[in-house]
């Protein structure tokens, strides 16, 4: 499985080259790897189903215990069927969809394969860090695919919104995952779920993880990015925004649900937002004229439905959920691809301009009808099977499940209505509109649409093919599962009755003109898009105001801000835990007092000095005073070096200031009391450092272990009795090498700064020098 993921990434790297050579065929080449992955996964399905769940591991940062672990279980297999199966189909479809010679081919094929690989990694990952990495990779791929060439403002805006919203959720999720992993003591998801931790931290973690799932799966109030993302090419929408990426949120919830389904912080948000999303999405889909946007709202609605089912947390609901995940992937990708054909052949996706396509393209119409009916929950299709199971699961649960059922029924009525709207709008004949002129729909593309559509039909008749897989996942919810099997016919039961009622109500809703008129109406403040816009605007304004205030461009202000932060943040922490030092004494040696006075007076006078040379000489006095203090401290080497360096520093200072005016240029304070503010700030910061030093030296207890070791081993190990020198040239010689490298660099830098100046002389100067030299030569 690791190999499969890696193969995706490798192929993605080469696809731009392949596209340059063979054009659209690159998509077909790109489809090979997902197809092979699908075949491989299906051939190993036995091991996933036999509760063996083979795991592979690759330690990529062993030093900090990070590894990438895959775990091949039922849910992963189901997702691979969607990710790789539909991925391969979409890539083949794109080969026909793209215009010949389209320059985006290399980019899009590469990104799609990269996305397929990331998605594969996401569904296989068994540790939270890899899960997050692949999660964000899909976000980035989505951003790049939606943005396309980024030539229009709309493309950029939609792509940015998709990126901002989903990566905001992704970051929240990362935090949540880390909290969860810390609480559980392991990063392995399977181990976390086997022993789910509890407590307040876990509640917060769960909420954060849900935020990630909701943004990715376009749940209210984060949903507007999904309709916006419809500016992407249709195959991309079909893959990312119907079959695979938006399912990642549902997948995440489904992955963690077995461990947390009893936690109110887990199921309440899922159920509430899921229901809201389901109803709102269906409601809004009713008014759309653009087929693709209609499908996008439909997707939002369906994702809400899937969320509700995971949130319900019972065995049958879970079974229904995974059934519908499969069904939705099949029918929604088929429908998107259908829209792609319509769009490509007729040049429009607007319901009001299309007419008579059903008669023109019979095979495509049949396939699309199959998919639409599956979406609406008509028998005999997989969507119906799933919906039956869903109603069954909600009927026999706790009282809250009945409330959920009511919401789901309402949402389903909308679903039926917008499904019919789609079908009639796309393929129906409109008396007022002239029949749309269109070439044949294309055999290859129609076939590709047919594959998922027909699969939905076949699986409805033989649900036994997939039931072990789906039930295998549901088994995680209950040790002794009820005796329920997927099927088209369970007898005259309540679910069947409800299904019929939903279909009738949906049909009536579709027929009455009431719904479309009402459906666009949402109170202004409730527009989620406005919320997003306000959020982004606010963020930009905040950034500008913070930058404008803190980053005023003046070096003193920067330093002042840094100093204030230094004193305020660590200082506050330090003072809160302060302990009075044990043994406070005025001095260690009487010699320290006059030296200290000398140093302080010299340092104080530096500030007041108006002449450069005075200031430099006073700084030298400070340096010599420090050297003397080192002698008192017992640091002979240190003092020697200090005296020598101080002398050299003085000389270098004098070299430079001989070119400067003797007096300092007067500061022009930007506001009058600047000098006093600076002085106060400096004094506070200086005192803070001194307190720090007192605390450090107060918490010191005798000679540290390392120093003792150095003293004891200096003679034997290095042949030196001067321990300081032994440390420099032997024990810590690596530091010394680094240090002399810094010296070399500094000297070179200084040389280039000063000698570069000579080159700035006007060329006349050089020319005259050369001329002099030439003349001298001529003379000889």
């Amino acid at each position: 499985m690791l190999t499969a993921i890696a193969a995706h990434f490798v192929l993605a790297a080469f696809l731009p080259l392949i596209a340059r050579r063979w054009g659209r065929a690159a998509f077909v080449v790109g489809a090979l790897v997902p197809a092979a992955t699908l075949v491989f996964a299906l051939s190993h399905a036995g091991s996933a189903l036999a509760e063996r769940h083979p795991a592979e591991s690759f330690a990529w940062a062993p030093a900090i215990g990070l590894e990438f672990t895959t775990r091949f279980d039922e849910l992963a297999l189901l997702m691979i069927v969607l990710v790789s199966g539909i991925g391969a189909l979409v890539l083949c479809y794109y080969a026909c969809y793209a215009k010949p010679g389209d320059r985006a081919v290399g980019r899009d094929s590469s990104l799609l394969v990269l996305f397929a690989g990331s998605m594969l990694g996401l569904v296989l990952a068994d540790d939270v860090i890899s899960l997050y990495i692949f999660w964000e990779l899909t976000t980035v791929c989505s951003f790049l695919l939606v943005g396309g060439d980024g030539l229009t403002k709309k493309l950029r805006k939609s792509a940015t919104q998709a990126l901002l919203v989903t990566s905001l959720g992704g970051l929240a999720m990362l935090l949540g995952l880390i909290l969860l992993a810390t609480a559980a003591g392991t990063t392995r998801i399977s181990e976390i779920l086997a022993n789910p931790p509890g407590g307040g931290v876990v509640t917060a973690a769960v909420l954060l993880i849900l935020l990630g799932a909701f943004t990715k799966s376009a749940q209210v109030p984060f949903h507007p990015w999904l309709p916006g993302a419809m500016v992407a090419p249709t195959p991309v929408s079909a893959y990312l925004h119907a079959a695979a990426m938006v399912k990642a949120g549902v997948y995440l919830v489904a992955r963690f649900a077995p461990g947390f389904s009893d936690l109110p912080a887990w199921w309440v948000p899922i159920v509430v937002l899921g229901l809201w999303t389901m109803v709102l999405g269906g409601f809004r889909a009713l008014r759309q004229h653009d087929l693709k946007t209609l499908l996008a709202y439909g997707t939002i609605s369906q994702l809400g439905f899937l969320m509700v089912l995971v949130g319900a947390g019972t065995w049958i609901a879970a079974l229904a959920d995974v059934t519908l995940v499969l069904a939705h992937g099949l029918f929604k990708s088929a429908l998107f691809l259908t829209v792609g054909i319509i769009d490509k052949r007729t040049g429009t996706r607007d319901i009001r301009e299309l007419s008579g396509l059903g008669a023109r393209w019979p095979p495509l119409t049949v396939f699309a009808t199959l998919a639409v009916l599956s979406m609406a929950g008509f028998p005999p299709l997989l969507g119906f099977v799933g919906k039956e199971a869903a109603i069954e699961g909600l009927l026999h649960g706790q009282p809250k499940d009945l409330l959920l059922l009511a919401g789901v029924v309402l949402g389903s009525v909308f679903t039926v209505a917008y499904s019919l709207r789609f079908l009639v709008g796309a393929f129906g004949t409109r008396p007022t509109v002239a029949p749309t002129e269109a070439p044949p729909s294309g055999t290859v593309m129609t076939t590709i649409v047919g594959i998922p559509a027909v699969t939905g039909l076949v699986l409805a008749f033989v649900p036994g093919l997939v039931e072990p897989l789906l039930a295998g996942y549901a088994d995680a919810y209950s040790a002794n599962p009820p005796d329920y099997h997927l099927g088209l016919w369970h007898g005259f039961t309540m679910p069947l009755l409800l299904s019929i009622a939903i279909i009738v109500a949906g049909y009536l809703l579709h027929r009455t003109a009431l719904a479309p008129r009402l459906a666009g109406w949402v109170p202004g403040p409730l527009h989620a898009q406005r919320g997003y816009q306000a959020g982004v605007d606010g963020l930009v304004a905040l950034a500008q105001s913070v930058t404008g205030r803190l980053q005023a461009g003046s070096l003193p202000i920067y330093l002042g801000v840094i100093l204030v932060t230094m004193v305020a943040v660590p200082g506050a922490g330090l003072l809160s835990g302060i302990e009075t030092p044990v043994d406070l004494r005025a001095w260690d040696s009487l010699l320290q007092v006059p030296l200290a006075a000398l140093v302080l007076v010299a340092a104080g006078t530096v500030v007041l000095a108006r002449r450069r040379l005075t200031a430099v000489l006073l700084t030298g006095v400070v340096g010599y005073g420090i050297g003397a203090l080192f002698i008192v401290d017992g640091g002979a080497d240190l003092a020697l070096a200090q005296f020598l360096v101080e002398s050299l520093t003085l000389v270098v200072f004098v070299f430079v200031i001989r070119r400067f005016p003797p007096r300092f240029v007067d500061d022009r304070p930007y506001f009058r009391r600047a000098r006093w503010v600076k002085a106060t700030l400096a004094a506070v910061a200086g005192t803070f450092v001194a307190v720090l030093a007192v605390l450090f030296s107060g918490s010191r207890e005798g000679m540290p272990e390392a120093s003792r070791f150095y003293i004891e081993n200096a003679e034997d190990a290095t042949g030196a009795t001067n321990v300081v020198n032994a440390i420099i040239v032997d024990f810590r010689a690596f530091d010394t090498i680094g240090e002399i490298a810094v010296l070399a660099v500094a000297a070179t830098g200084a040389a280039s700064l000063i000698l570069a100046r000579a080159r700035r002389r006007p060329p006349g100067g050089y020319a005259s020098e050369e001329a002099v030299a030439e003349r001298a030569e001529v003379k000889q």
Partner: protein
Amino acid sequence: MTVNLTMAVVLAGLYAVGFYLLMQRSLMRVILGIVILGHGANLFLQVAGGPPGEPVFAGTALIEAMVDPLPQALALTAIVITFALTTFLLALAYRSWALLGHDEVQDDVEDRRIREAERRREGMDESDEPDAEAAEAVAGFEAPEASEEVPR
């Protein structure tokens, strides 16, 4: 263990002077500030490294009587590095002098622009909402009435 007040006062003075000089606009003063901060840091290492004692020559005194050699080695390295840094900064000041004719630290132009923009924005907030129209236009794809973008 023991804490030496005199040295603490010296440290406070050196760091305060260093910080103050660092906040000046004359590059030469800034460099002097860095030199003094360097002195302060070296002294800090010694103060934090314990009270005075015998010089560390192995075998000449009891280990307990010696000063800690490690801070000394660190400070020795730091002294030389400070010297290298100072010369580099002096070269920089000289270069600034040669190019601009002064050694003052100038304000960053880009940062100033941001500040100006912020001031303008604050002024506009009071008059009206400039972004209202743009927000309206974006809210458009909540319910797009017209056909979407032509696909590529």
